[in-house]
């Protein structure tokens, strides 16, 4: 542990896995961790052009990308094993991959419920189960899950998404209990309205009116979420576990 005066975040030379790293918040997280000197191995589902952009934009960073569907537990296990075999260890898992399929409850198709829960919840289980054994063996490591303010506060047209993120919050707290004996911390970051492709529909639907519900009166940037993830990953947060950190500009209930 460095002295409190030091700005070193303790991440240099570490090995990180980030799911859903090609776009949006995931991309910002990959870039932030790489900028701290971590080797970052991220997954993406299908947009190879976007994944290559991330790698090309960070020539100095140690970044690799792999196609992994987080709903496939065997694929998650293979990915974790490949990284561990190549890098020798894993220090950090960021479960970021997620999808939205917003609609009022009665308009939701089976597929809208299934895809959201399988990606946002089962995907987190799959990757955490794949990575946790390495962290347990090392007696160190961190897991950070991307939740959402809607996991706690709910949101119109978001029963499926909010339920999935509520599950992520509960998962985070439970896994923190399980892994604490081995010194592993588990936390979540819960973004509010962030300027990404994924949230565009929500933002367009709500219009300017959404700003009235945000104390800081502006939409957040992906980098602002990435900074919270960086903090929880850094050794500055070594004494924090089982927490949900909201990064939402002060989002209010309706």
């Amino acid at each position, binding site marked *: 542990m460095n002295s409190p005066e030091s700005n070193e975040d303790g991440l240099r030379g570490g090995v990180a896995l980030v799911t859903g790293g090609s776009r949006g918040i995931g991309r910002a997280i990959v870039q932030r961790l790489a900028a701290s000197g971590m080797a970052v191995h991220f997954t993406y589902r299908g947009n190879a052009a976007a994944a290559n952009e991330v790698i090309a934009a960070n020539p100095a960073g140690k970044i690799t990308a792999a196609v992994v569907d987080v709903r496939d537990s065997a694929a998650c296990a293979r990915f974790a094993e490949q990284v561990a075999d190549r890098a020798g260890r894993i220090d950090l898992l960021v479960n970021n991959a997620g999808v939205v399929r917003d609609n009022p409850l009665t308009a939701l198709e089976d597929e809208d419920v299934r895809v959201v829960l399988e990606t946002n919840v089962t995907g987190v289980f799959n990757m955490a189960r794949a990575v946790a*054994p390495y962290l*347990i*063996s090392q*007696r160190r490591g961190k897991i950070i899950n991307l939740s959402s303010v809607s996991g706690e506060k709910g949101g119109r047209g978001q029963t499926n998404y909010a339920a999935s993120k509520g599950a992520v919050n509960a998962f985070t707290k439970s896994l923190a209990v*399980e*892994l604490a*004996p081995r010194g592993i911390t588990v936390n979540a970051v819960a973004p509010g309205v962030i300027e990404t492709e994924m949230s565009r529909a929500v933002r367009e639907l709500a219009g300017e009116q959404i700003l009235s519900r945000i104390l800081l009166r502006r939409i957040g940037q992906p980098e602002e979420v990435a900074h919270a993830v960086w903090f929880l990953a850094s050794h500055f947060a070594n004494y924090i576990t089982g927490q949900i950190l909201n990064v939402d500009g002060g989002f209010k209930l309706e």
Partner: protein
Amino acid sequence: MNNTNITKEDISAIYPKVADIMADALGCDVEKVKPDSSLINDLGAESIDFLDIIFRLERTFKVKIPRGKIVEEARGNLSEAEFETGGVVTPAGVERLKFFLSEVPAERFSSPLKVADIPRLFTTETFCKMAIRQQRATAGTPPA
């Protein structure tokens, strides 16, 4: 699947690696690990340590060890009802366990023996035998 085809030599061959794994997983000196050490009673293993030990064995010996494998194999051809009732191992089940866990000194089998306490019987040698069985299963070697 039984014990008869695992010899002392087979166990000796992998014992040093398994003892190292135990010591690393439990954070103790390897000298403290003995072939007949009970992982829980002598070495202070907790449930998370068992997961770590299994994971390390899988990585070291390139095998897959399904969770609950030891108890499942120990039960052998006994049905669940024949093996235990109300969480207590039946006399037939205890006999079967004593055979399967032949490395465990007989006096360690308490009476009555709760199913939840079976892992208390496991010794370093128990895990050596499991690794050998899984290696053979992976290699497709038929039992002798």
